[in-house]
């Protein structure tokens, strides 16, 4: 079955700074996101996962490569018409619900701000109705529209952030660590909300997080990113049960499990990049198993394959 590709990232590069102070945050990143799936980007802070998300959102300029949305190039110079389409169809949910909402605006305005920009001249009655509907969709009451962000708890604020993106009727949502700043009990509610929305509206997600345990629960496929490079990519269960790259395995070993015996026997793996000998045998992106890609050189690939056969 051929799946429809919604977003394709080809040889993406993002560089910050100029000349001597140049820093390459994203190096030759490639991936495809299929329509209706949840694609996860996992990495530590500083790995460039947020930068990729922002590049897709057109907030950050790319310095190389292409981002294709529904087959159309959306990075660099694009027509105003396409720009508006991208703004409407691709939405973002941010990490910190304390910082991402305008403290001085009422929820009513926060939620409909995007709408006012894209559908200029929308009748007031319709705008109100859509705000109310968006609030109801995320499990908040329409009365909340007249309140200010500080009157809400962290979980409720995150719901407001989600309502603000839903009102645009997006097809693709980039969720950048949407639950990292939340309490464990509230996390479950927000995760369930995101899953429900996806089922109801066939929205595609790019889910960015550092925690593989959350990823395992919500994503269909995962790409592991380190220092701006994707080191491994596979379907979620496959990646978790058959991680090849030592960095992925280090991430997996760091997941805290609610099982004291298991935890006490666990050996924490720390990834040391100097373990690779890439002096002569250069690493390249290759498929080790079906749909399971790893950044490895020839020798490592042989070892990984053997590892799997065992």
């Amino acid at each position, binding site marked *: 079955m051929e799946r429809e590709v919604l977003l394709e990232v080809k040889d993406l590069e993002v560089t910050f700074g100029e000349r001597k102070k140049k820093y390459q945050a994203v190096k030759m990143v490639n991936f495809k996101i299929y329509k209706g799936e949840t694609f996860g980007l996992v990495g530590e802070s*500083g790995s460039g996962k947020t930068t990729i998300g922002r590049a897709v959102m057109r907030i950050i300029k790319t310095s190389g490569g292409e981002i294709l949305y529904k087959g159309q190039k959306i990075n660099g110079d694009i027509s105003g018409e396409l720009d508006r389409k991208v703004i409407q169809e691709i939405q973002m949910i941010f990490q910190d619900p304390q910082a991402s909402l305008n403290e001085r605006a009422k929820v009513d305005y926060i939620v409909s701000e995007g709408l006012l920009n894209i559908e200029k001249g929308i009748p007031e009655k319709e705008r109100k109705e859509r705000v109310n509907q968006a609030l109801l969709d995320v499990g908040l009451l329409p009365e909340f529209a007249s309140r200010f962000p500080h009157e809400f708890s962290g979980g409720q604020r995150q719901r407001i952030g989600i309502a603000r993106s839903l009102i645009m009727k997006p097809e693709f949502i980039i969720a950048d660590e949407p639950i990292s700043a939340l309490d*464990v009990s509230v996390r479950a509610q927000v995760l369930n909300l995101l899953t429900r929305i996806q089922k109801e509206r066939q929205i595609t997600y790019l889910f960015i997080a550092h925690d593989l345990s959350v990823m395992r*629960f919500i994503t269909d496929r995962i790409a592991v990113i380190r220092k701006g490079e994707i080191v491994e990519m596979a379907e979620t269960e496959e990646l978790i049960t058959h991680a090849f790259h030592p960095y992925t395995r280090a991430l997996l070993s760091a997941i805290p499990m*609610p099982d004291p*015996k*298991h935890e006490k026997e666990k050996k924490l793996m720390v990834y040391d990049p100097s373990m690779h000998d890439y002096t002569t045998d250069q690493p390249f992106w290759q498929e080790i198993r079906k749909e399971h890609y790893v950044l490895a050189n020839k020798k490592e690939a042989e070892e990984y394959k053997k590892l799997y056969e065992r």
Partner: protein
Amino acid sequence: MERETILEVNDLDITFELRGKRLHAIRGISLELYKGEILAIVGESGSGKSVFTKSFMGLLDKNGSVSGGRAVYYGSDNKIPVELTGIKKEKDWLRLRGHEIAMIMQDPMTSLNPLKTIGAQIMEAVLLHQKGSRAEAKKRTLQYLTDVGIQDPEKRFSQYPHEFSGGMRQRVVIAIAIACNPQILICDEPTTALDVTIQAQILELIKELRLKYKLSVILITHDLGVVANTADRVAVMYAGDIVEIGTSEDIFYDARHPYTWALLSSLPQVGIKGENLFSIAGTPPNLYAEIKGDAFAPRNPQALKIDFVKNPPYFSISPTHKAKTWLLDERAPKADPPPVLKIIREGGLF
């Protein structure tokens, strides 16, 4: 085996005065901290876990006060018990803070001074709390930096906080706390702001330091998932009270309180893909109002009638394990623990 108690809390009550209203933040907690153990206190935000531990250091906000019960510290050098709840003067607190009880805060960005080198900040603690010359203090500072896993301490000594990553900053904060030479180390959400990999390393570090410096550790967190690795005992806190306490094994394999069940079930680690993750309905109770019965009852689908009338006492399950729930009364109907407990017990996690 009788264990030595270093901190004993009896029926502690803490209230805050806010705009003429009284907020009952801590509602009669009794707890012992044993020498050399790591005790985790787990609860949602607002459950009072930070307020509880801040009261041991005299760090409550001005409008808050201990309105009942007592906390006694047994760890001082001359072996004379100190009644923490009786301390009134700031001067007396200064003798205790850092030197006896030290604290690590959640956010390493805000707990360091951005204008001073980290070496100076650690040395300040050494000079204040330990005897010796400046040269000795510097030598010790370098030793602390090594102990908390910072490589190349000579060079790092003269660097500023902004030159450190989040995880490294938290290590520096820990070094400062250790440099005070405390008996009790309170870690308030030490890893919440950090990546999973760094979190694991910091928890590992806390375990190591506990042995090396013979610390008794209180680890505060909202994430039950992280404590299985670190804690010897776990106290589950809800609405200003400890509803269940036991060893890690007691809590993770044999939890009895419906709130502990709910916390365990809502962990993404135990979630099944495609199915809804368990989430606790409702919100924590309003602590301005008087709570009648079991505080968790309104959110508990299995609540009994008596839960709304009378607050349950502790029922003992084993010498190490007790819980405040009427379900443990012999007259209560049999309640089935959620399936998640069985999965955890059988090691059925991924």
